[in-house]
């Protein structure tokens, strides 16, 4: 488990010292990516800790589906003039919260 903070720090260093073009991505989509990553990582950790095998596929599918559906809802909302940002982010936030709940000692 100690590898996770190490990888986070490595990623942090990459993002901080290299010129990652965040400014091309609107703020709401950054929030979506952030939540989708949190949700997928904790989902993967839950599955790993439960001892399941072949978790790469489910984690990737969860990430892609989360991003695709959330992105579509935000895009659709912007085009139709309706603020659907909360609706787009809520499922990912709930997924993240449920994954964290599974970490709690039984």
């Amino acid at each position, binding site marked *: 488990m100690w590898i996770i903070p190490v990888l*986070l720090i490595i990623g942090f260093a990459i993002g901080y010292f290299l010129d*990652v073009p*965040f400014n091309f991505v609107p703020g709401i989509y950054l929030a979506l990516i952030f939540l989708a990553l949190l949700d997928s990582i904790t989902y993967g950790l839950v599955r790993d*800790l439960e001892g399941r095998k072949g978790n790469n596929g489910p984690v990737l599918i969860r990430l892609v589906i989360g991003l695709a559906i959330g992105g579509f809802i935000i895009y659709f909302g912007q085009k139709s003039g309706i603020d659907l940002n909360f609706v787009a982010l809520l499922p990912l936030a709930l997924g993240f919260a449920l994954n964290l709940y599974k970490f709690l000692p039984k």
Partner: protein
Amino acid sequence: MKRNEKTRTGRPLSAMTLLLSIALGVMLSLPFKVIHEVGGEPLPSESRQEMLNRMSKLEEENEQLRTEIEQSRANISQLEGSLMADQETSAELSDALTRYRILAGLDPVHGPGIRLTLSEQTSEVPQSTEVAPYLIHQEDLLNIVNELWLAGAEAIAIRSRGRTERLIMASTIRCVGSLIDVNNTRMTPPFDIFAIGDPDELSNALTMPRGVLEPLQFFNIQWEIVKMDDMELPAYSGLTLLEFAQPVEPGDRE
């Protein structure tokens, strides 16, 4: 094959989880990088009222600068006039200069033309219907102005809330939120569009079947055309600077 980190159960963490952890780290660096780039200073957190006050102050300064530009132009015209008056042969030059200044929108002009008044009737829009199509948009004004130029208008101006903006080749008409920005002046309906030219031709161009005004009636946008024998349009009040465009000398042409 590289073996991943083992969990408490003895199974390795999935590669995808590890990869996404790096991506999350990259995302986490974003706020720190932003703070680093703005020099550690907190980002301005002005309230809406403060921003409105600042905008109002800037608009006042803008107005003051416009007045200064108009005064400077009047001085230039006066100096040009006194210079030209001394020379008999300068009459033609003076006429040409006046013509070009009118074409460039730098002098006030008067003449016959039309006044088109456009107004919204959003109060009659059913509650369940979206209001946006019932508002006057930049495209509506641009279409009307294009049609007027095409019909031979020699000078065009748009008036709203007592402010009249003369249109020239560098004029801009664009939506800014719920307002329309004409020559960087914020305007709201109703709009009066003045055009100097043949009143009949201008009027016919706008009211012809399938013309620019016909679609507006479907969205409760009211319009009225008044033909005028004489009207006066102000000069363009913005800056007209030429930084890059240079005249082509006869010798430059192939």
